[in-house]
């Protein structure tokens, strides 16, 4: 596992004051905010910055981090398990953190029981947040995924050890981008007999090569031949729910949307699938094809620039 230098991420000295840390964070958060940033890797940088800030702004976490950093530089063993990289991002030491966090972070702070407070205190564990990236197909049909969560435990010598627990999560069909999946009792352990917190997974879709997603609706480009668009035709189109025969109306233009009701992401109401017509011209790469284009030009008086004026 790569050791993360949170001080370097925020560009502050090790002895930086809370104020320095906050100022540095605010500056970087503006620079890399995904809504405004022009940087290509803004989202990843924002995550790194958020993660570093969540640790360094909290005196308890910062002390734990400094301890660990000292151990690493003197050759401390901090090796991840072999199935380390499972595409899972932890999203918060405390509840309500907007940021997504690296495995490094979750191994440090993801429910290792490093909580302050008196031993006699009874408290419900904090809720945790994480992001999960799924394929569109998982949302259409539902899926089962194993999700690994890591935390730090201590062995009999009091040495920190990484622990991994794997949750088998059923992703319900009909889940939308940005929706939360709630796993009851999988957040921070409670204290003194208190209930465990919950774990919230925010769903993100991996980009799909064919479909664009907007809410529950899907959009797909459907190539048609010029004569199919001009004369009308019935064409076969693949959909996530299997192929369909779809009628292309005569005189269809490029960009015309054909709506297939209920063929988007399932739900109440189910989303629709829009087929966006894309007119594909046959290449004029044979004498026959060139002849056909010449023939069309002769037979059909057509000036595509007539509306442009002089």
């Amino acid at each position: 596992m790569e050791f993360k230098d949170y001080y370097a991420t925020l560009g502050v000295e090790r002895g930086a004051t809370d104020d320095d840390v906050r100022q540095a964070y605010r500056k970087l958060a503006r620079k890399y905010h995904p809504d405004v940033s022009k940087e290509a890797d803004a989202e990843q940088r924002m995550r790194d910055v958020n993660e570093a800030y969540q640790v360094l702004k909290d005196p308890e976490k910062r002390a734990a981090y400094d301890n660990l950093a000292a151990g690493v530089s003197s050759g401390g063993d901090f090796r991840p398990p072999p199935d380390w990289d499972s595409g899972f991002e932890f999203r918060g030491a405390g509840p309500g953190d907007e940021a997504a966090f690296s495995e490094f972070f979750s191994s440090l702070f993801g429910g290792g029981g490093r909580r302050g407070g008196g031993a006699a205190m009874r408290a419900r564990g904090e809720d945790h947040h994480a992001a999960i990236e799924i394929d569109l197909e998982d949302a259409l049909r539902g899926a089962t995924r194993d999700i690994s969560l890591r935390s730090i435990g201590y062995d009999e010598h009091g040495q920190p050890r990484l622990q991994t627990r794997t949750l088998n999560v059923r992703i319900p069909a009909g889940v939308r981008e940005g929706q939360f999946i709630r796993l009851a009792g999988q957040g921070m352990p409670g204290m003194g007999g208190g209930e465990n917190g919950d774990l919230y997974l925010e769903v993100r879709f991996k980009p799909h090569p064919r479909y664009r997603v907007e809410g529950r609706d899907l959009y797909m480009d459907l190539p048609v031949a010029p004569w199919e668009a001009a004369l009308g035709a019935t064409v076969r189109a693949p959909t996530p729910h299997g192929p369909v025969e779809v009628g292309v109306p005569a005189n269809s233009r490029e960009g015309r949307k054909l709506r297939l009701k209920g063929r988007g992401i399932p739900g109440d109401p189910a989303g629709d699938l829009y087929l966006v017509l894309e007119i594909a011209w046959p290449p004029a790469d044979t004498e026959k094809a060139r002849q056909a284009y010449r023939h069309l030009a002769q037979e059909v008086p057509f000036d595509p620039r007539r509306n442009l004026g002089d």
Partner: protein
Amino acid sequence: MKTVAVTATLVGKEAPLSTGELARACGAEETWVLQLVKVGIVEASGRPADWRFDSAALRQALAARSLQRDFDASLDAAALILDMSSEIRRLRARLRVLGMDADGF
């Protein structure tokens, strides 16, 4: 390695969050959630004594929390920032649907 099967619920119409659950998910108090509703950062359904919140409300609430905590934003400023942010996302999603992105084609 031990695998634990867990029950997953989709936060939404079928399984909404109560006021207390939303507050807890954000590490906040219930009174804070009442303020969010009042300012219009989150929408609640149901009767005031028995409010229900969906995933969009949770997302908004988490974002408002971090704006307040990390930027000392007032709730009204947070509301404005979140409105603008959601408008940017809506426009970007429209552009994507049209096969474009915000910085060109």
